[in-house]
């Protein structure tokens, strides 16, 4: 079981705060929308990840527990 940042692309309005708070895992595309790393959140960044999630003005980020196999019909 690992933890991953997940963005709801429909909720996201491209405020871009998350990329400032967590540049190690989140970068912005040229329109300002976050491209989130598929890599697991390392323990050393967990506090920053939780802060980025809590401060998203659209509440578009979540921390997702993921097993090795992808769930049926997962949204990207």
């Amino acid at each position, binding site marked *: 079981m690992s933890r991953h940042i997940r963005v709801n692309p429909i909720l996201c309005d491209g405020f871009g705060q998350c990329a400032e708070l967590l540049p190690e895992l989140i970068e912005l595309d040229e*329109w300002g929308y976050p491209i989130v790393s598929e890599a697991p959140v390392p323990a050393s960044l967990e506090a920053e990840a939780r802060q980025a999630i809590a401060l998203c003005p659209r509440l578009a980020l979540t921390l997702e527990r993921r097993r090795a196999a992808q769930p049926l019909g997962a949204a990207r």
Partner: protein
Amino acid sequence: MSALTVREPQLALEPRLLSRTSCAAPLPALSRAREREHLLAEIEASGLTGRGGGGFPTATKLRAVALGRSPIVVANGTEGEPASSKDKVLIAANPHLVIDGAVTAARLVGATDVVIAAGRADGRGIAALEHAVAERRGFDQGIALGVVAAPDRFVAGEEKALVNWLNGGQAKPTVDRPFERGVRGRPTLVQNVETLANLALIARHGADWFRELGTPQEPGSALVTVRGAVRAPGVAEIELGTTLRDVLAGFGGLTAIPQAFLLGGYFGTWVSARDALDLPFTNESLRPLGASLGARLVIALPQDACGLAETARVVRYLGRESAGQCGSCYFGLPAIATAFEMLAGGTADAPQALERLSRLVPQVEGRGACSLPTGATRLVTSALRVFAHEVDGHRAGRCCAPRRPAVLPVPDLHEHEWS
């Protein structure tokens, strides 16, 4: 070029999906748990996968929905892919087989409600379904059947979008998973109509019969739409594993030497004619070319057409079909379309356009709530690969076919609603 000559048409397959007699035998009652488990095991053994484009194993989806409380079954015949007609042809030719499959799926998962969706523009299909439902009144005990006419947008038939529309919203994708939270918040089985028709056939004849056609990995028959440079464009039932050359022969053969095929639909992949013509029509054999069966659409692009110009028109269309919900799709697809038009237009900006595309595609691929952005980038990437030789000509300011009529159909824009 001898590899691309036309052969005599092959003997047609004895139709399964398009045969009216396929509904003659009674369906199993499935009133006992043991019967239901037996049929689920048969479907699993048949190797049936989704015929709408996703290709997901049907038995797995059935089992996932069956775990939930009071599920709903949605038969998806919306077929928003503009160049594809196979679901429309199936619905018009054999509405009862589709409904048989939907009713059987409902009994398997414990659903009492079945919704059958077709596209609003498909008046013939809607009428056929309504007529068939009326004819069955009193036959499907314990199952309520409804027919709905869904909005005609490219993404409206995406299963989450269809569920959202059935719930009173717009036909735009959501991030919910229908098999967990679908119509009225209930677990919802959304299955393509051709998948359901196959399910009804397996319920009657079993897995071994189903596997008499096709390959061990990809059993059964399939409905395909073939357009472009063939004598008799349209829809036909083929055996999976038939070579593309023989599939085309079934459509009267080629009318011109093809340079490339678009496989799978507007979400699909361009492949060079030379690479694909003698491959069996299966996902397995197309995978090395980066292609798949997708929506089972084949468009043969003749030599005198321009693959870049054709792709540019389709990418612009896909961009305008964005639901406007996800930034990377709403901004990214029109940006890709603009860059691709610059490339195809043969202007002096072509070299910059190519560089711009190489930066845009990775920013759009794999993102968004549905597969529209990924499908569009797949089309673009394959066009750049297959028409690479033309890219050079276009960079020098030459388009190979500037005045030719379009091969890939694109619907009139902005005339369809979202709800």
